């Protein structure tokens, strides 16, 4: 292999962009344009929209995102461990159980404090 595999990945990235961009640009070139004031209003079941669109969202969303970041970081530790699980032996397994236990305590705390509830 002369090229790195990642050149291929780059190529597929460009390919994905071309599929999306190509479709939109083609459509943009051939589609009709008939200007009507109502057509460009935000869709709200035929009623004029009231108030600003970008409203405040509740904290539950943010909590889920935070929990997600923390557990996502945890999973990236788990992946290398799982790959070497069979050769590293019992000691590594116990280390990982401790690691997981600490984080399960976190999950338990989040659960207890109602951070997982959608209120």
């Amino acid at each position: 292999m002369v090229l790195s595999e990642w050149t291929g990945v780059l190529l597929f990235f460009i390919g994905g962009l071309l599929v999306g961009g190509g479709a939109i640009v083609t459509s943009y070139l051939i589609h009709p344009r008939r200007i009507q004031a109502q057509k460009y209003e935000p869709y709200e079941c035929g009623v004029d929209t009231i108030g600003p669109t970008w409203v405040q969202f509740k904290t539950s969303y943010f909590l889920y995102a935070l929990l997600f970041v923390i557990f996502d970081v945890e999973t990236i530790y788990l992946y290398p461990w799982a790959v070497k699980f069979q050769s590293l032996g019992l000691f590594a397994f116990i280390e990982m159980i401790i690691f997981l236990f600490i984080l399960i305590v976190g999950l338990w705390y989040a659960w207890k404090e109602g951070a997982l509830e959608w209120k």
Partner: protein
Amino acid sequence: MGENIFTGIAESLRAFLYGAGVPPLASELIVLIVKLLAVIIFVSLNVVWLVYMERKIAAYIQCRIGPNRVGPKGLLQTVADVVKLLAKEIIIPRRVDKVVYLAAPILVFVPPMLAFAVIPWGDGMAPIDLNIGVFYILAVGSLSTIIFWMGGWSSNNKYSLVGGMRVVAQMVSYELPLVLSLLGVIMLTGTLSITEIVNAQRGTWFIFAQPLAFLIYFIAGVSEVNRVPFDLVEGESEIIAGPYTEYSGMAYAMYMLAEYGNMMVISCMCTIMFLGGWLAPFGWTFLPSWFWFFIKVYLMIFIFMWIRWTYPRIRVDQLLGFGWKVLVPLSLANIFVTGVGMYIYRAIGW
């Protein structure tokens, strides 16, 4: 026996380029571009077919006939739809964030495309064989979340924004079980390479060794592609079409294309990780490997569709509660049980 038709084509192309005196760098590049084009064409054809299949299955489940006018048995219905959408105006409503609004449908097909780059469509038929294939698919898959959100946020529409926020909350909550459930398989095989994982299933498919992981992965996968019963994101009876509400014409079609593309990625991953990839069941090797892969992927897709037309939508608190309180603890337990189980197996002389 039709085995390796496609690898044969790739080999002969390579040999031809070598014979024509093309420098190795350029010939590698040409082979890659041919692979890319093949994947694009294959995926587009599949998506067109899947939309038709979805409508037909829905129709039969509901005792209707479904599309039957355009072409034989309505086969050309989706083609007609695509052509129609191509000729429709892409409406840009007032006060939308134009750049983000148009960037989202262009970008939305990139994550599934990147994932298709490493999927082995048959024995030795992965366009690119990465060392960290599985992890790579998870990484690029996580990018779609923010692209959907871009569409929802930029539309200047309350339904879109609510849909966009729901996309993120839902995909984020179900990405964890999705990622964690695969760990059981990784522990059994000790590799992240997709080819090696498939080859490790020559004895038993991992659906038998890791049934719980398969179930978790499948449920989380249904949720990741925002399909019924987890389609709160675009629940048409409450928020019109979620993030896609304002989109029209080809921009809307791109979202649909990406949705079916993502569904294919999840089905392919189920097949690779749990259903033995391209391996033939019962040693029935009279059919080529890519054919088996194809059948398994379509079986998974059929189950996706079957579920869609069978179950009602669940509530948002149920959705998030189920993800965090059932699937995450279960997948952690699965890792633990797998580890202990492997030690017990080894102790009794595996």
